[in-house]
C-alpha cells in the first residue's frame, strides 16, 4: 500500500497536550514516523504548511438513516459528508427503519458500511426492542455483533424500571448508554423552547424542565447503578450543573453538545423558520453561556453533531408538521471554530481533544483519537484562517435542512485521510 507524507504542518497532539511543527509519515494505513524534515521519495506528499494536522475527528452522534429512510441520507452520502467535514469515524444512531435492535441488523449495517468503505462507520444499537421503550435488547449479543453503544435516541426512555435494570445489566458488558432526554408527558406536541418566543409565535412549547427532570432522574440511576451513561445534545444551563454535581460524586457520566445549540437561540426561529426547528429546541443566551462554560470546565467532554438530515418535503410547509433536525456534518468543525475558538473559549488542543481524543476513548477505540506512531492513519487537516461561505446547496449530504446557509466560517477541513487513504485532498473530495 502506498505511503503518504504530510509536510510542514502544525501537529496537534491531544494525548500529550502538545503542539509541534513536524512531518507525519504514513505507511500501510498506520502512522510510522513523526518528526521534522522527513523525506521519502516513494511517499505521496501533502503540503500542510499553514494548516493544523491532527487525529481525524470522531462524531458520536449522526443519523445516516440507513436502512429505511435512504431518501434523507444513506451510508454513502453520509460518509462523504463526514469526509468533507474532517470526520474519519462516526457513530450512527440506531433509530432507523427498522431500528437496529438485533445482532442480525447490526451485522447487516456494518457489512453495508464495509461495502461503502469510506470513513469508519460504527453503530449504536437500541436500548429497547423496536424502540418501544418496553423490553431491553440482547445487549451482550449486540456487542458481539459490533455495537459500540446503546441508545434509543430520538426518543426518551420513559420506563424508569427498564432503565434501572438496563444500567445494572450493562455494567457486565462495559457498554455505554447514550440518552436522549425529554419527558414526553411534559414535552407532548411541543415545537420550540418555552418562553417569550413560543408565546409570540403561538407555538406549543418544549419546556426545559422536560429535559432537566429526566436528566436528573437518570443521573441518580447512573450513580446508583455504576453504569456508564452519556447525555447527548445537552441544551440547558441546569443540566450542566446537575451533571457536574454527579460527576463530582464519582458517577460515570459524560455529555456532548451540538454546534447549533452553541450558536443559535430560540430567536432564530423568526429568521430561519423550520430550518431551526430541532430537538432539544434552541434555548436562551444564558443556556449558551452555561454550555460553553461546561465545555471549558470539562463537564461536557465531547463535541458532536446530531447530524439529522431530512428531505425538503419533511421540512417545508406547516411549521408544526415539519421534522425536527439539522443537517450539519460537513460544517460541524467550522461551526465549532466559530462557537469556541473565535471567542477563545478553548484552545486548538482542547478542540481536538473534544472532537477526537475523548470520543475515541468513549468508544474504546484504542488505535484512534491520537497522533502517535502506531496509531491508525486517520487524519484531519484544517485551514484555521481562511473564511468561506456555507453553501447548503453544495452539501454532499442529502439533507439540505440547515439554517447556516450563507454564514461566513473559517476552520474548514481541507484534507481527510482514513486508514491511510486520502479521501479529501485540498478541499476536493476523492471519494
Amino acid at each position, binding site marked *: 500500500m502506498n505511503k503518504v507524507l504530510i509536510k510542514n504542518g502544525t501537529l496537534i497532539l491531544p494525548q500529550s497536550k502538545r503542539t509541534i511543527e513536524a512531518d507525519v509519515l504514513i505507511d500501510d494505513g498506520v502512522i510510522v514516523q513523526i518528526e521534522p524534515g522527513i523525506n521519502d521519495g516513494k511517499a505521496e506528499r501533502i503540503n500542510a504548511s499553514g494548516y493544523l494536522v491532527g487525529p481525524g475527528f470522531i462524531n458520536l452522534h449522526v443519523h445516516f438513516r440507513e436502512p429505511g429512510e435512504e431518501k434523507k441520507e444513506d451510508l454513502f452520502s453520509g460518509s462523504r459528508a463526514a469526509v468533507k467535514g474532517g470526520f474519519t469515524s462516526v457513530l450512527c444512531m440506531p433509530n432507523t427503519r427498522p431500528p437496529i435492535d438485533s445482532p442480525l441488523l447490526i451485522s447487516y449495517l456494518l457489512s453495508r458500511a464495509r461495502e461503502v468503505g469510506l470513513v469508519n462507520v460504527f453503530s449504536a444499537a437500541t436500548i429497547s426492542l423496536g424502540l418501544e421503550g418496553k*423490553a*431491553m*435488547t*440482547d*445487549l*451482550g*449479543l449486540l456487542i*458481539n455483533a459490533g455495537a459500540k453503544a446503546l441508545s434509543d435516541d430520538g426518543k426518551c426512555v420513559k420506563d424508569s*424500571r*427498564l432503565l434501572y*435494570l438496563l444500567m*445494572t*445489566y450493562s*455494567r*457486565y458488558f462495559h457498554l455505554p448508554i447514550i440518552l436522549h432526554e425529554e419527558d414526553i408527558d411534559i414535552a407532548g406536541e411541543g415545537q420550540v423552547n418555552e418562553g417569550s418566543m413560543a408565546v409570540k409565535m403561538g407555538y406549543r412549547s418544549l419546556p426545559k424542565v422536560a429535559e432537566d427532570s429526566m436528566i436528573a432522574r437518570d443521573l441518580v440511576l447512573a450513580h446508583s447503578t455504576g453504569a456508564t451513561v452519556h447525555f447527548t445534545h445537552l441544551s440547558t444551563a441546569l443540566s450542566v450543573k446537575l451533571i457536574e454535581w454527579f460527576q463530582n460524586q464519582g458517577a460515570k457520566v459524560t455529555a456532548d453538545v451540538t454546534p447549533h445549540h452553541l450558536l443559535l437561540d430560540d430567536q432564530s426561529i423568526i429568521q430561519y423558520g423550520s430550518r431551526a426547528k430541532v430537538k432539544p429546541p434552541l434555548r436562551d443566551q444564558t443556556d449558551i453561556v452555561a454550555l460553553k462554560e461546561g465545555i471549558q470546565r470539562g463537564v461536557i467532554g465531547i463535541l458532536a453533531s446530531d447530524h439529522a438530515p431530512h428531505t425538503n418535503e419533511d421540512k417545508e410547509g406547516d411549521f408544526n408538521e415539519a421534522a425536527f433536525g439539522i443537517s450539519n456534518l460537513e460544517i460541524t468543525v467550522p461551526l465549532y471554530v466559530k462557537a469556541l475558538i473565535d471567542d477563545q473559549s478553548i484552545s486548538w488542543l482542547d478542540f481536538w481533544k473534544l472532537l477526537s481524543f475523548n470520543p475515541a476513548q468513549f468508544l474504546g477505540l484504542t488505535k484512534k483519537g491520537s497522533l502517535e506512531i502506531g496509531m491508525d492513519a486517520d487524519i484531519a487537516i484544517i485551514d484555521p484562517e481562511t473564511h468561506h461561505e456555507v453553501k447548503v446547496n453544495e452539501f454532499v449530504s442529502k439533507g439540505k435542512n440547515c439554517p447556516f446557509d450563507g454564514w461566513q466560517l473559517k476552520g474548514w477541513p481541507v484534507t481527510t485521510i482514513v486508514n491511510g487513504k486520502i479521501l479529501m485532498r485540498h478541499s476536493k473530495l476523492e471519494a
Partner: protein
Amino acid sequence: MKWKHKHLLGIDQLSGEEIRFLLEKGNQYREWLEQSPKKLTRLSGYCLINLFFEASTRTRVSFEMAGKLLGMEVVNFTNELSSLNKGESFRDTVRTLARMKVDALVIRHRSSGIPLYISQFLPFHIINAGDGMREHPTQALLDLLTMKRDGIDFTRNTVAIIGDILHSRVARSLSIGLKKLGSQVIFSGPPTLIPKGIEVLEGQVVYPVEEAIRQADVVYLLRIQKERQEAGFFPSAKEYASFFGLKEKPKGPDGRWKKIMHPGPVNRGLEIDSSLVEKENSLIEEQVSCGLAIRMAVLETLILGGANG
C-alpha cells in the same frame, strides 16, 4: 450429640458442628439407601404432614419418601385442595391442622418468614422446605452432603454460585452453610440478579462468569425462572445462555474437571448446556439421592433429639 433445636427453620440457626452431625447421619442413610427392600421402623407411629403452598415435585416426594422409609404416617396437603380457596385465613388453616395432633410439619410457602411465624404458635416440629427468598435448609444440607460424599474438603473448597442470586433461597442457605464449614463462596451472574447487600452472605461477587468458574472447585448453577426474563432482569433466554449459562465442561488447572451442581429442575440449554447434565463430572443426579438421605436424617434428628446418632 444432644440436639437442641425443635425446628429446622434455616441453616442460619445451625452451628458448623450441628451441620457436620446431620451430614454424618445423612451419609449413613445414603449408604443404607443402596439396599433393597428397605424399611425402617425408627419413627413408626409418628405422623408427618407435608404442607406445600408452592408447586414442588422433588422436595415434596423426597420428604414423603423419607418419612415413609422411617415408618412414619405421611399426609400430603397442597394448596389447590385446601380451604384457603374457600376464604379461610392462613392462620386458621394452620391452626386447624394443628388440631390433627401430628408430630412434624414440613412447609413450603412463597412468603419469606412463614415457617418462623407458625413455629411461634404450633406445638410440633416445623421443617422449612423453602420459604420465599429466605431459606431452604434441606436443599443446602443435601448439597453439602453431595459435596462431602464426592470427597470435597470444605476447608479447601471454593464454590461458585451462578445465576439468579436475588430470588434464590437456595443460594442463601447454601452460601451460609458453606461458610460455616469453612468454604469460600463466589457469586456471579447478571448484575440485575445479584442484589445489593450481598456482602451479608460473605461471598465475593466475581465478574464475568468465566472468571468465577475459573476460581471455583464446584460450579453451582441456579435455576432461571422464565418469569425473570418477562420481568426484565435479562433480555432473552438466548442471551442468558450465551453469557451466563455453562456451555462446556469446566476444567481446573490440574486438568481435572470441576464438579457441576444444580438444585433442579434443570432448564436444559439455559443455565446449563444439555450435554453437560449427565456428564461424569455432574453431581446433579446424586443430589437427588442425597436429598432423600438428608431428609431422613433431619426427621430422625428432630423427632428423636439426635440421641440415636
